[in-house]
């Protein structure tokens, strides 16, 4: 059961700087205690007149908290330093802080701002980072995410993933929109609008293109679309159904699932639609391919053993080996960037939940406590899983830390969100 639920209505204010205005709310749920979390004091930066809201330290603090690896230190009654010399290390240490983030914002002519921020290690009494940015107001949130990335990397040793993007499909009435947004769900941009369903978006490895499945031709067809100019090509529109695109790490080829020769089978195809090669040959369902980060292995879902399970095979084709054994329904694999973990959806007593699977040991851990989870997707740094679920009859997006202890919800009111994918 949740021990603490923190709700931040402040993000409603962020509407002011969202171009495709979206009523977004962010809810972070911390299930476990504070043990093993890095305690960071996010001191509000010295503000400048006319600066966007919320404060940079607020946005960066939410990022850090959502990762599950940080907790904020209570600032109540404390003096609020804005420069390194003002930081009282012993005081913050007494508050339980491991680190303190401080900064200043000053207004520049032309609506620009100068941002300075400092990360102080109050245990070692040293300065870990100091950066300055000159930004227009529209880069406010992006700057906060960069600050969070720096703090995250300095304190965990792992690069942050706060400046990355996600894609998802939003359904409103009978309208479908494929959207690309910041990793925290803000700044959504619609890249496809359709009266027919869109599913399975996947960013190219360099983030410049997006593959997806559209039903606009009255059947599933795989498209690849440029995120720069919106131009798109039909990559797979063969007889039958075309679906489940997955980029090879080199960005030149995709694995897709076609039914042109048999039931759903996995093929490789060049990103321009040429060079089709079939790589699975079964009389069963083979679908949801995903490449290992080194490109040598493909993980996929198959019912060849009598129930839906995840298998792996050489990307060049060949024998498949079963990966999942618990339960009768394990589907939708996502692999971490280091290739060490899978996240997938597992059915247990009628509930569909996100499971984390350590490939070296076969150990699994259920990360969520919901019932209708779908489409797990690792953050680029492998430390958080994005997924879709249903809450109050509505599709929402959520993130969960690898220990399952911190869950956050990214959602807009009144619309259905589904099919999330995390991009670079």
């Amino acid at each position, binding site marked *: 059961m949740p021990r603490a639920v923190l709700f931040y209505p402040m993000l409603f204010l962020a509407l002011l700087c969202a171009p495709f205005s979206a009523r977004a709310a962010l809810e972070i749920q911390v299930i476990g205690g504070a043990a093993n979390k890095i305690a960071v004091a996010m001191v509000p930066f010295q503000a400048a007149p006319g600066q966007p809201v919320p404060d940079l330290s607020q946005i960066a603090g939410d990022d850090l908290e959502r990762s599950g690896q940080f907790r904020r230190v209570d600032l109540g009654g404390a003096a609020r330093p804005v420069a390194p010399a003002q930081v009282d290390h012993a005081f913050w240490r007494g508050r339980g802080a491991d680190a303190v983030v401080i900064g200043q914002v000053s207004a520049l002519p032309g609506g620009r701002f100068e941002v300075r921020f400092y990360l102080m290690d109050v245990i070692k009494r040293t300065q870990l980072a100091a950066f300055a940015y000159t930004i227009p107001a529209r880069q406010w949130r992006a700057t906060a995410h960069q600050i969070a990335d720096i703090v995250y990397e300095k304190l965990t040793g792992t690069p942050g993933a706060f400046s990355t993007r996600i894609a998802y499909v939003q359904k409103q009435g009978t309208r479908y929109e494929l959207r690309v947004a910041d990793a925290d769900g803000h700044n959504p941009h619609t890249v496809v609008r359709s009266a027919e369903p869109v*599913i399975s978006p996947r960013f190219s490895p360099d983030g410049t293109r997006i593959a997806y499945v559209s039903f606009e031709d*009255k*059947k599933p067809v795989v498209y690849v679309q440029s995120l720069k100019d919106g131009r798109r090509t039909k990559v797979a529109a063969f007889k*039958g159904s075309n679906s489940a695109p997955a980029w090879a790490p080199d960005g030149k080829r995709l694995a897709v699932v076609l039914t042109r020769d048999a039931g759903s089978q996995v093929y490789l195809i060049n990103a321009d639609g040429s060079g089709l090669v079939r790589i699975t040959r079964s009389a069963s*369902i083979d679908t949801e391919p995903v490449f290992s980060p080194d490109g040598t292995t493909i993980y996929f879902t198959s019912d060849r053993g009598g129930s839906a399970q995840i298998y792996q095979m050489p990307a060049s084709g060949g024998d498949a080996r079963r990966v999942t054994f618990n339960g009768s329904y394990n589907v*939708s694999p996502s692999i971490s960037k280091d290739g060490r973990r899978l996240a997938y959806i597992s059915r247990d007593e009628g509930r569909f939940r996100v499971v984390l699977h350590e490939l070296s040991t076969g150990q699994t851990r259920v990360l969520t406590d919901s019932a209708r989870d779908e*489409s797990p997707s690792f953050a680029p740094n492998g430390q958080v899983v994005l997924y879709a679920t249903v809450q109050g009859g509505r599709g929402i997006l959520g993130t969960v830390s690898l220990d399952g202890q911190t869950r956050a919800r990214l959602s807009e009111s009144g619309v259905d969100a589904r099919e999330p994918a995390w991009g670079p």
Partner: protein
Amino acid sequence: MNKIFWPVLLALTVSACGTKGTTPAQVEDRTGTGTATTAPATGAASTGTSSDSVSGSALPGDATGVDPRKDPANVLSKRSVFFDFDSFVIKDEYSAMIQAHASYLNANRNARVILQGNADERGSREYNLALGQKRAEAVRRALSVLGVTESQMEAVSFGEEKLRKTGSTEEAHAENRRTDVVYGDE
């Protein structure tokens, strides 16, 4: 469901302008509850709400020039094959319907059908797409065995993307586990 309205509307639509957008398939087989709406003696056709009323619908109607595929009294107007949970076997109750479509396709080699498989909403969208494909393939194979050529047929899947019935009841799930037969000119 209005028993009189639809047949009349369809008759008017069909006689006035031949094939038009609205397919009788949308009228048919909505409930799947097994309550057959039988035709009263007045000749107003059955709306055949149940798939298992198939054997009762004989083949009148097309003498008047009405497209037999759109004649609610004709078995060809039946377009949905429903499947049991986790099953891809076509039940016996659909054999007359499938036979009728095969005969029509064999007699009209220019006619084409799209077999649209569907799945209920539980679980992965892509996996459900594959399940819907299996249901579409089951109907395609059945028609193939009866002599329909491959070039006349395309089996595709909508997975869980085009739920005919929403909700998480078993009734809704059953309604969504189906293959629809849609002609190319519809």
